[in-house]
């Protein structure tokens, strides 16, 4: 037993409460954004889900990256379970961020898709980690699978900033169809909105930690089941 069941239950309840507070903060407490067109004011509230998802996904991939390095150093199965759990969650949060971004882009930019650096980079990240799981799926032997996946996880994570930079440079030379302001004034949030924004970000990080803990304990359970199967020649 890697994580005590009790701790996991407490974490789950905390995450549930945090997400309920986040929903309240995002939909009720936060004021309307006065600096955007009235017709897209409701859509603006997606920022309270979109940005936290994106941050959680980056956190997840970073955890996966560190776990991959630790696996190669220690060869302990724990870090393989961590890396796989974090990569899966990273994919889930990335999908959430890309879809919510697209939904917001339709009213705001009048298109579901633009070759904006962040959007494009995120899609590439999604492809990177889908490839990561294809690699895992194509190797049967557990220790070899863990080793290969860890090596790929390191290569994949390091390419993300380079991809982001190259797409940004590309776009500064080619005119961008839609004006994508830089991140510091993109939000343009008032104090009350900032508060809601921080609350939702915190809530998503708690949600991420809770999901990660659950996934890791599931990973250990799978590990034990495989060991049992082997013993019973199943």
């Amino acid at each position, binding site marked *: 037993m890697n994580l005590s069941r009790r701790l996991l239950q407490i974490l789950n309840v905390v995450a549930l409460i945090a997400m309920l507070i986040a929903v309240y903060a995002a939909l009720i407490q936060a004021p309307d954004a006065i600096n955007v067109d009235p017709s897209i004011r409701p859509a603006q509230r997606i920022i309270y889900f979109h940005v936290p998802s994106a941050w959680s996904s980056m956190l997840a991939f970073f955890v996966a990256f560190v776990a991959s390095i630790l696996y190669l150093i220690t060869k302990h199965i724990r870090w393989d379970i961590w890396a796989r759990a974090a990569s899966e969650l990273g994919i889930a949060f990335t999908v959430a961020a890309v879809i919510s971004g697209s939904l917001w882009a339709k009213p705001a930019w009048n298109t579901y898709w633009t070759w904006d650096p962040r959007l494009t980079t995120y899609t590439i990240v999604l492809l990177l980690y889908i*490839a990561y799981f294809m*690699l895992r799926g*194509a190797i049967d032997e557990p220790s070899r699978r863990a080793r290969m996946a860890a*090596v790929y996880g390191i*290569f994949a994570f390091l390419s993300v900033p380079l991809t982001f930079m190259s797409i940004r440079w590309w776009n500064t030379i080619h005119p961008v169809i839609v004006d994508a302001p830089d991140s510091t004034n993109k939000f343009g949030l008032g104090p009350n909105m900032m508060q809601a924004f921080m609350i939702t970000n915190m809530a998503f990080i708690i949600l991420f930690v809770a999901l990660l803990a659950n996934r890791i304990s599931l990973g250990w359970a799978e590990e034990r089941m495989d060991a049992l199967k082997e013993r019973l020649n199943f």
Partner: protein
Amino acid sequence: MKRYIQVVWAVLWKDLRIELRTKDIFTSMAVFAVLALMIFNFAFELRVPDKTMVIPGVLWVTITFSGVLGLGRAFISEKDRGSMAGLLLAPVDRSAIYFGKMLASLIFILVMEIFLLPLMVIFFNTNFISPPLLLVLFLGTLGFAAVGTVFSGLAVNTRTREVLLPVLLFPVMLPVLMAGIRATIGFMEGDTLADMMKWVNLLLFFDLLYLVVAYMTFDFVVEE
């Protein structure tokens, strides 16, 4: 150090000699490259106002797609004949095997490019080759071979083998492709190397970063 270089050279020379005798990799890469040029010609001919506009894209996509064919073969002979164990038993640092393999792949792809470039000049009827372009091509190919050799080692250990390689390789190679295409456009429009330094630096950084990471991780890829 001298011994290390000897090992690198031995692995490189072994691969080159196999290739000189069989010509497997070069033939498939070269034929594929010509086919790609033909297909691109028909894909763009009627819709693009001036075919020279698509040269940068055609050049880099052709190199990437035919390069991945060659990279896919990097460890196949060892795997099929079971001689990988022999290679690994040699009492040397395993990164020397990586550098030998990487240099062999680099040379195969460079030779393919030497074959491809004049062909493109003829087909597109424009001389777009310039020394700065050759530099960018070399740096891009180096990054391609540096990452591709490691990933080839990963893919050869899987059930799907070569099929998996492009899926693993292309998303990581995106910065190289973008830098290469962007710099090629610049050189064709008369920019100097200094104007495109940003992209050259990106390529240099990419090459250096991944050569170091590959040096550190290759041990784990070939470990049995």
